[in-house]
């Protein structure tokens, strides 16, 4: 099984690599691994005039990165080492659990993981007072469930989970989660390894509310996925590499994230993304500051920069997910190039869109039950 080459990585077309090259030697070095990170970060290390951000692939355009450095004089080390919440957690855990610092000044992780880190006390309070633009945070994400005080996290982007499919290969429009279980597509269906997304959709199909789901209530949905693995309906659990399988024709349909398919559809018009009739899922990735971060001023500068609607609009236009910053839609409308994006229902879902978050209030004990059961299913 192909694990964890996950979200937003390999968006096909080598764009990530091209982006990394364009961003210059700093980011290239940063992509290389821990040692290289040190080398790159060392240029301004400790002086308060450098910033190290760990994030997901294809989550920041090169222009914004360059502009930030130019405007603030802060040397930015932006890496795309986060491929999977759990995997990234495993890399920072040894340091943070023993009270040591990590290289990153900011890392971007999904809400449920943010909750874990906040509960463990491994992140510091953000310098929100020094981030005047934080007022632009959309209302729906003020004091989110994973961070009820709003002191520890500031959202980076949100996204929707639905179904991506190849119209030509499917031979019809797919509208329902049930289509993923249609025997006609046996062996041609992909699920995301990220449990919240895949299980979430199945819960919705089963009429279970994912926002309040307990382990017991999720039982039938787990069983359903397990059976679909056993009879060969589900071919693969993937990270972001589901895109390769969609393009290569290995998948007819799969559970997918909203921003990616929009980019892929530019080259492959047969690809479509839908929020299924039963409803979809919504999630947020959020910026966190690990315990012991010293470059606090640079952290504030960065957050302020990213929460400026003009900058946020540029970033949103590149990544194609849901921006957490107010005013982005208006900014996108101002330019001919991006006006179409302002009307995108994937980037700006109407208030009626039926999307729910995966239970953000699971305590770690119950979360472990979910994780173990999911691991059992995905590793056969």
């Amino acid at each position, binding site marked *: *099984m*192909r*694990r*964890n080459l996950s979200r937003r990585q390999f968006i096909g077309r080598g764009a990530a690599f091209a982006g990394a090259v364009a961003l210059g030697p700093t980011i290239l070095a940063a992509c290389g691994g821990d040692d290289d990170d040190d080398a790159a970060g060392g240029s301004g290390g400790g002086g308060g005039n450098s910033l190290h951000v760990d994030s997901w692939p294809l989550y920041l355009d090169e222009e914004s990165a360059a502009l930030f450095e130019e405007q603030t004089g802060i040397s930015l080390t932006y890496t795309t080492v986060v491929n*999977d919440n*759990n*995997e990234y*957690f*495993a890399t920072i*855990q*040894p340091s943070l*659990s*023993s009270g040591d610092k990590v290289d990153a000044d900011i890392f971007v992780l999904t809400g449920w993981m943010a909750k*874990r880190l906040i509960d*463990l006390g491994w992140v510091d309070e953000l310098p929100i007072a020094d981030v005047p633009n934080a007022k632009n945070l959309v209302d729906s994400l003020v004091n989110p469930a994973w961070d009820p005080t709003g002191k520890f996290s500031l959202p980076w982007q949100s996204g929707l989970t639905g179904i991506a499919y190849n119209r030509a290969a499917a031979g019809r429009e797919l509208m329902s989660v049930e289509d993923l279980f249609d025997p006609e597509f*046996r*062996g*041609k269906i992909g699920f995301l390894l990220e449990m919240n997304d895949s299980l979430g959709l199945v819960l919705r199909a089963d009429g279970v509310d994912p926002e309040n789901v307990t382990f017991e209530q999720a039982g039938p949905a787990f069983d359903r996925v397990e059976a679909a*693995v*056993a009879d*060969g309906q*589900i*071919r*693969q*659990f993937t990270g972001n590499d589901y895109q390769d399988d969609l393009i*290569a*024709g*290995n998948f007819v349909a799969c559970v997918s994230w909203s921003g990616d398919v929009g980019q892929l559809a530019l080259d492959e018009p047969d690809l479509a993304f839908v929020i299924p009739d039963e409803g979809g899922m919504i999630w947020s990735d959020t910026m966190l500051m690990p315990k012991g971060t010293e470059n606090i001023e640079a952290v504030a500068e960065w957050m302020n920069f990213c929460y400026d609607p003009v900058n946020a609009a540029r970033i949103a236009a590149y990544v194609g997910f849901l921006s957490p910053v107010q005013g982005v839609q208006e900014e996108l409308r101002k330019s001919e190039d991006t006006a179409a994006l302002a009307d995108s229902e994937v980037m700006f879902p109407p208030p009626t869109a039926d999307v729910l978050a995966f239970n953000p209030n699971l305590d*770690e004990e119950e979360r*472990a039950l979910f*994780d*173990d059961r999911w*691991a059992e*299913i*995905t*590793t*056969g």
Partner: protein
Amino acid sequence: MAKETDDRTQRRGGWVPYGLLSPGVVWLALFFLVPLLTLVRVSLSTQESRFEQKFSFTWEFKNYSDVLSEFGDIFLRSFGYAGIATVLCIAIGYPMAYFIAFRGGRYRNLLLGLVVVPFFTSYLVRTIAWVSIMGDEGPFLDLIRALALDGALDGIGITDNGRLLATEWAVIGGLTYNFLPFMVLPIYVSLEKIDVALVEAAKDLYSGAARSFRKVTLPMSLPGVFAGTLLTFIPASGDFINAEFLGGPKNTMIGNVVQQQFLVQNRYTSAAAISLILMVIITAGVLVYAKVLGTEDLT
């Protein structure tokens, strides 16, 4: 020979062999023995929280029984895949090595070079290349469909519903492909050492081609087969790359589980126990295998 060596050693002083050995011993002690002992310790500990690497050593043998009951079938599957891949490697590699050694003539080195050429690219790249080649719309299955063999392959269970990727044969095929040179090279070395005069002598004594192969060539090449089997079976059992890229959720191997337990689930004690069980089973297997096949000639 042994006596001669002893004499020389004594003349130069008894410390020389130890001196020569010490870099290797220090290296192994630091980077094999110490980590191994740590692994044993962790495997018998309890981990208080999966978010912290704090282990208390409690002789927790339950870790072993837990992972055996939880992942026993995956152990069996891994050894099954590795075993089939090894047999396939012998079936493909032996004739190849035989041909190169006895019929290669002046092209011998070129042919050997061709066996090694795939090693110039990375293991990962070679495996990922298979993903494209074997894809549902890829060249291999296109060819199969053009030859109208897809029904037959489905019938004998090589493909599943017309697909090759995410099946057990894709994983076994990947393992076979990736480890084939490890089988060919040692067999070649042992075949190449055979004095052709011995085979001729067998024929002079009225052995047919098959009998002289069975009585002379094969026994003399067994050390190569033995070495090749070890070099193939051991890494193949612990492999996770092929299952990761070519297999589906039903084809997970034990290497994937170790990776998952260590790096995703943070269950260090389970991961350590699985690793040690794998190590013990392989060691025991190798000892039995050595006993059966004999290792005196293994050089």
